[in-house]
């Protein structure tokens, strides 16, 4: 099978800091890759570099599109890049304020990507919005409400609906359960797990929470100071960590 995404020696420095230092990995269709590491280890930088939100210093990002064509994202013209991000990719932000338009209704938030790709039928947009609100378990009656009236968990689920409406193949998430209560986190994780399965999503999931990767990630990459220190199947890495940093991470979460 061809990888969906190939990252090859990706590097990003801030002044003298190596935020990402020669990172390489393959992501296969349907796979959930967890990226774990302490705060400041370079997880967000890596995710934003892959999504093209920030320029990188070196390395390759190759994505295999819907038609099976490998595309070098670093040389792809901006117009195509932005289109691809709206049709085949989705990005879930830790802070819903960064991922949602807070001043327009939930329905408009979901409709925006459809409007971006040329949908011009109001009724169709409404029915798509209803469909995706149910998929993320938000009552239809909230469709015409502003996201600022939603709870934190609902806002994250709305972020999901907002990107899933164009049926992306690859979803990048940066600490999606970050600011949420434990019980709300559990509900969101459940939902994410079932959506990944039913929609055959490929996901790169950044978190500092081992519980989250244990539940969702097939594979795991451990980062420290901008470098990948360990990688493998999630259960193997967590049950038998080799690198001292991973051992420390795992034992820290075992402690009550």
């Amino acid at each position: 099978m061809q990888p969906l995404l190939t990252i090859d020696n990706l590097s990003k420095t801030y002044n003298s800091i190596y935020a990402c230092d020669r990172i390489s990995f393959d992501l296969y269709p349907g796979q959930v890759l967890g990226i774990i590491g302490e705060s400041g280890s370079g997880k967000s930088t890596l995710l934003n570099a892959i999504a093209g939100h920030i320029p990188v210093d070196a390395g390759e990002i190759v994505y295999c599109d819907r038609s099976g064509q490998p595309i070098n994202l670093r040389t792809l013209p901006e117009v195509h890049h932005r289109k691809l991000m709206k049709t085949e990719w989705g990005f879930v932000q830790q802070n819903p304020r960064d991922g949602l338009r807070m001043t327009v209704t939930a329905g408009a938030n979901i409709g925006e990507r459809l409007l971006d790709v040329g949908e011009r039928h109001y009724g169709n947009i409404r029915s798509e919005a209803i469909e995706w609100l149910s998929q993320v378990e938000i009552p239809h009656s909230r469709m015409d409400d502003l996201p600022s009236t939603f709870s934190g968990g609902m806002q994250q689920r709305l972020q999901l609906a907002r990107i899933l409406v164009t049926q992306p193949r690859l979803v990048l998430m940066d600490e999606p359960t970050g600011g949420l209560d434990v019980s709300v986190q559990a509900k969101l994780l459940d939902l994410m797990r079932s959506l990944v399965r039913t929609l055959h999503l490929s996901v790169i999931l950044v978190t500092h929470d081992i519980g989250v990767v244990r539940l969702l990630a097939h594979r795991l990459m451990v980062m420290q100071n901008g470098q990948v220190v360990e990688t493998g199947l999630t259960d193997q890495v967590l049950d038998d960590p080799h690198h001292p940093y991973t051992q420390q991470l795992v034992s820290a979460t075992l402690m009550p």
Partner: protein
Amino acid sequence: MTLSPQLPSSPALPEPGFNFAYLDEQTKRSIRRAALKAVAIPGHQIPFSSREMPMSYGWGTGGVQVTASVIGQMDTLKVIDQGADDTTNAVNIRRFFRKVCGINTTERTEEATLIQTRHRIPETPLREGQIMVYQVPMPEPLYFIEPSRTEANKMHALEEYGPVYVRLYEDITRFGHIAMAYDYPVMVNDRYLMKPSPIPRFDNPKLHMNPALQLFGAGREKRIYALPPYTKVKSLDFEDHPFTVETWDQPCEFCGATDTYLDEVVTDDQGSRLWICSDTDYCNQRQQNNHLLTPTLS
């Protein structure tokens, strides 16, 4: 309001001490260059170095500069403000150009070769060879979504107009219809999103395939854009919520027109009101023609 027809004013000599049309030749040339670029890319905003004019920005200095740059000795100028030729703004701009150009001015749409306007497009259809100059307070249709000019320019370049439709979606969701009454955004030539200046949406269809050259000047924002003759102009809408224009339940009180843009006028302190054509010239002419017909009718 003027009810009597006015003959075109006779040309006077430009006042000494001014260059023709106030601006120096080099400035006019550079504004014309911007206007030509604008004509070459319909609906696309071209920056120009806006000059100080002897009037404040609220008076439409963008339009005045464009007019000053394209006006010639043989031109006949009409100035419209809210549909009328006799508001302070219109009178002042007309007087200004008479003074610095010594050209003919008129209130009649069909006599004018050059029409500077704020808020209206004449009801009398324009013809080939005429030039409309619009005074534009805010040229950027993406400003309300994207205050950064760099980012807005990128959205234009990449034709990313989805967020504008989000606004239309919100209007329909909240009010049941698209609520924008003035400066209703249009797509030009299926390519550029454009603000038509604060004309009522009623006038939007007149932008489409118009035989006249239409130039838009924004003084404060230093932008010129254009619609060459016979350009496709489409008001934004949804397939299932098509663009519509305002309609009125009654005809114009003065001329009986049923197909014009009407203004509501309060006539006394008991709150009596009248609905009359906003285009004074058009209304006057219809009244004259009606008057000629009256003997046979009664």
